[in-house]
Structures are given as C-alpha cells and as structure tokens.
C-alpha cells in the first residue's frame, strides 16, 4: 500500500456561518487519497464536492471542526505554507473560462510557473511541454487570444496552465462536462498517460458514472455534505438501491448487465464497463 497523501476527517464547513444567509456545505466529509492512484469523487449536485476539493487545494482552510492533511501538512495550522501547497496540488476548475487569466495562450500557461522564478528558457520549455501534453501545438497556439478559443481548446489550455506547475496531485472538477465524446476520450487518455508517465495522483470530480467506472480505482461518494461510501467502483456501483437513495445512477453498463440478469441471462451483476459486459455476454452465449 502506497503512501497516503490526502487525509480529511470529520470536516464540517458552513458558508457565511452565523448570519441569516448561512449555508451548510459539509457536515462530516472524509477523503483519503494514496500516491499514484486515480480516485473519483461523486455525488449529486449540491453534495459539497467542489467545497471539499477547495479544502484539498487550500482555497479553504479547516474551521473549528475537522482535520485536513495534504502532502504531510495540516492546512489548519496557521504556519502552513498554502502557496507551496497549491503548487503541488493543481486544481482544474469546472468552467475553463473562469481559469484563464491572460490574453494570450502562452502567457496564460506561463502564469503559474512565472511565479516560481524560472529562467526564460525553462519557462518556455515548461509551456511547450504543457501544451504538448494536452495535445495543442506550441507554434500554433502560443500567440492565440484566449477569448478566441473554442470550448474544448479552452479546457485544454486551462489544463495546460495547471500542468505547467507540475503538480503532484491533479484535481479535475468536472473537467470533461460539455466536451464532445472524442474530446472526452482524449482527456481520458491524457489522464492515464499523466498517471503512468509522470506518476501524478489524480482526483476526478465527476457526474459521469461511465467515466468514473472507466478510469477510477477508488470512489468516494458524498451525499448532503457527508461521505457515505468509499471503496472500489465495483463495490459502489453494485448497490443500485443505495445509489438511487443518494441521487445517483449506476453506469450504463451496470444497468444493462442488471437488466440482462433479470431477463435470465447468466451475466454477473457487478460489471461496470461496456468491455466487461461484452466479455460476460460472450461467455454467456458460448456456454
């Protein structure tokens, strides 16, 4: 078992506490991430996913209740260097246009690393690397206006801007929502590559259960600000009833397998990807 890099326990958070507009967001959230894993955080809208992720990135700090340990630091400790922490924990926002801060793509990708005091050549190398990783050609894109990008390109540039800081932990807050199927598949391939080649730990916040089944090896379920389940995706998605109670649906593949099983086909109920359904069907038909 590899090293635990994020440990959040019993976290409670209320926006604007003590005022008439107080809005409780987290009421006992837990999250554990191990180095090198691809984890997913799922839950219905308003479950507190984005709030929890902001705690991991140090955008929010623990209030009275709860502990947040990220990369060996207690972010509730006033002496904790949050800027250094944010360099190691990259957060890709849900809406890329919110993350683009400069007029030109090259400047925007360089925005983070520029604060690190790198030489010009090193900075240029990083920008080139980051654009290359997300599949954008350096020469073509470096001088493009950020406002003239398409939605998919904007998302890639936002991702490149975070990757240019070379984070150890990469968090994507619904980063494939609104992408076309091909763009989505490309991002999935990219995430797999980052994990394999760079050893990045990745946390996906997602509402797409097919995506989660496809990519994640650990799933944390958040419901009304509480962590209600944490484990491998196969275990989570096998519990159709519970999932419904949390306002979630199993992946399409699991639903298909369960329907087939009800119709009398000898298909196991705990498959989660279409490839597994295909395999199970193949075996059932051969038998």
């Amino acid at each position: 078992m590899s090293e635990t890099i994020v440990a959040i326990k019993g976290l409670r958070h209320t926006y604007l506490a003590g005022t008439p507009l107080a809005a409780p967001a987290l009421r006992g959230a837990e999250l554990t991430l191990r180095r090198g894993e691809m984890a997913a955080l799922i839950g219905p809208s308003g479950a507190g996913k984005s709030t929890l992720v902001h705690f991991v990135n140090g955008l929010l700090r623990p209030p009275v209740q709860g502990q947040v340990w990220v990369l060996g630091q207690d972010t509730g400790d006033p002496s904790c260097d949050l800027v250094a922490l944010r360099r190691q924990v990259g957060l890709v926002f849900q809406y890329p246009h919110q993350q683009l801060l400069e007029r030109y793509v090259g400047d925007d990708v360089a925005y983070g690393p520029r604060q690190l005091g790198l030489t010009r050549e090193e900075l240029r190398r990083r920008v080139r690397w980051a654009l290359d990783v997300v599949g954008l050609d350096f020469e073509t894109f470096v001088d493009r206006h950020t406002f003239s990008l398409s939605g998919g390109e904007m998302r890639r540039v936002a991702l490149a801007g975070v990757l240019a800081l070379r984070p150890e932990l990469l968090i994507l807050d619904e980063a494939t929502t609104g992408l076309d199927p091909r763009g989505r598949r490309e991002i999935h391939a990219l995430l797999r590559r980052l994990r394999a080649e760079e050893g990045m730990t990745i946390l996906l916040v997602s509402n797409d259960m097919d995506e989660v089944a496809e990519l994640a090896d650990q799933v944390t379920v958040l419901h009304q600000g509480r962590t209600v389940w944490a484990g491998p995706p196969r275990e989570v998605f096998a519990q159709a009833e519970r999932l419904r109670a949390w306002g979630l649906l199993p992946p399409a593949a699991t639903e298909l397998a369960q329907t087939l099983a009800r119709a009398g086909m000898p298909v196991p109920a705990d498959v989660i990807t279409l490839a597994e359904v295909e395999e199970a069907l193949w075996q059932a038909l051969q038998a």
Partner: protein
Amino acid sequence: MASVAGLRYLTIGQYVPGDSPIHRLDPRTKLVALALLLAAGLATAKLATNLALFLVICALVGLARLPFRYLRSSIQPALPVILVLLALQVLFYPSAHRDPAGAGRMLISWGVLRVSAGGLWAASISLLRLINLLLLFGLLTGTTPTGALTQGLEHLLRPLNALGLPGHELAFVGAIALRFVPILGESLETILQAQASRSVRQEAGTRWRLARNAQRTAALVVPLFVEAYRRAEELSWAMQARCYRGGRGRTHLRTLVFASADYLALGLAACTVAGVILLQRLPLP
C-alpha cells in the same frame, strides 16, 4: 493568510427575509419614508438633529430585527473612504468659518496642519450623516425584496411617464444593479481563486494597504469586467427569449395596497422630518 472564499455572499444591499412590521410595509411607503428621512438628514447641519435621526434609525433597525452584522457589513466597505474624507475635512476646515461651538479655536497648529475645534465638530456631523445615509439604505434593501422595490419605484415614477420618463425601465435598471452585486461578488471570488490556485500570493485582505491593494485590484478588474459584460449580454438574451417588452401591459402577482400601517408609517416619517426641522431652529449645537 485568509482563505479565498465568501465574496459571493456579499451582503450589501441584499434582502434579509423576515416578518417584522417594517418588512410588511408597502414598498412605496418605505421608499417615500426613506426619501423624507434622507432629506431631513441632509437638510440639517447640527449635531443634535443628526443624533436624533440616528436614534430614530436605530429604533427602526431594532423594529425590523435586522442582524447587526448585516448593517455593519453595509457600512464597512465605505469606511476607508469616509475616514479619508473626514481627515480632509478636519485638516482643511476654514478657520474663518463661523460655528457656534468653539469659533475656530485651534487645538493643534503645526505648520500647515491646523486642527480646529470647529473642524472636528463639522467632521463628526459629517460622519453621523454618512452613517445615517448608509443605515437608511441598508434598512430599505434589507427589508424589501428586489422585486417589490422595483414595483414600488415603478408606481412612484408613474406620474413622470407623461413627461416621457421611462419609469418602468429606470426601476428595472436599479433592480438589476442590486441583483448584480452578489453575481459580481461571485465572479470576483472565482477570479481570486483562479489566481490563488495558480500560486499567486494573496496576503490577508487588509483594506488599509491602499497602494498594494490598488495594484492587486488592477489585475482583477479586467477579468471582472469581461465577466460582467458576458453576464449582461446573457441577461439581455434571456429577457428577449422570454419576450420582455418593457412595462407596458405588465401585471403583477401581488398588487400593492396601502394598509393602515402604511399611513401610520408615512405620518411618523413626516413627524420625524417636522421634528428635525424644529430641532434645527432651536438654539442647540
């Protein structure tokens, strides 16, 4: 270093749901009473009258059961500006100015810096006036939902329609401006978060380090304006998509009806104005 959050919950000008006598008043009553009290505050230049007005406003705030934090938050952002204005007033108070209290008696005279009792006196009156003004607006917006405010304003501006003044549109613009305060707060928060998460150092937001803050503000203003224009454009599309065509022939879910409490409130507001004018004539400081 504070965490970067909470701006979306800016409380300036936001409605605080409640069921106090002030909440229940007709929006027109509140608008007229506000205008009367504002006029009373601005028409008098005595400490006693402004102090009396302050007490009246405090009583109204108590009656509305508005939380203290809400009102504090509506004064706080203006505080640095107010203090600078007061400092200027104290320092550049014309010593020849006639005033009943100390008649330009010098307290400190140090080169060009001269602080007179009269200057301090005038400054404290100005401070009280500004606080009254901010509290009154906080009281109005805190107890009246934006929709009701628009409707009330529209009704009050109706006589001016004959002169070609677009009452509905003016009221609507005001309402949208109020509605945009939390929206822009939210955008600002997101931009700050985007900068922070890409390792920009943002020390605790002390509003007193003006030069430093100005520099940081410049980096925020451009993305904020881009976002504001984008929002405005989206809003106009949404209005067109729902066939918005101004106030003509538009009906309301709640029609405004004056109740006896409204007449009472207007009467009391008028009495306050009369009282303030009387106090002004008395030989008080």
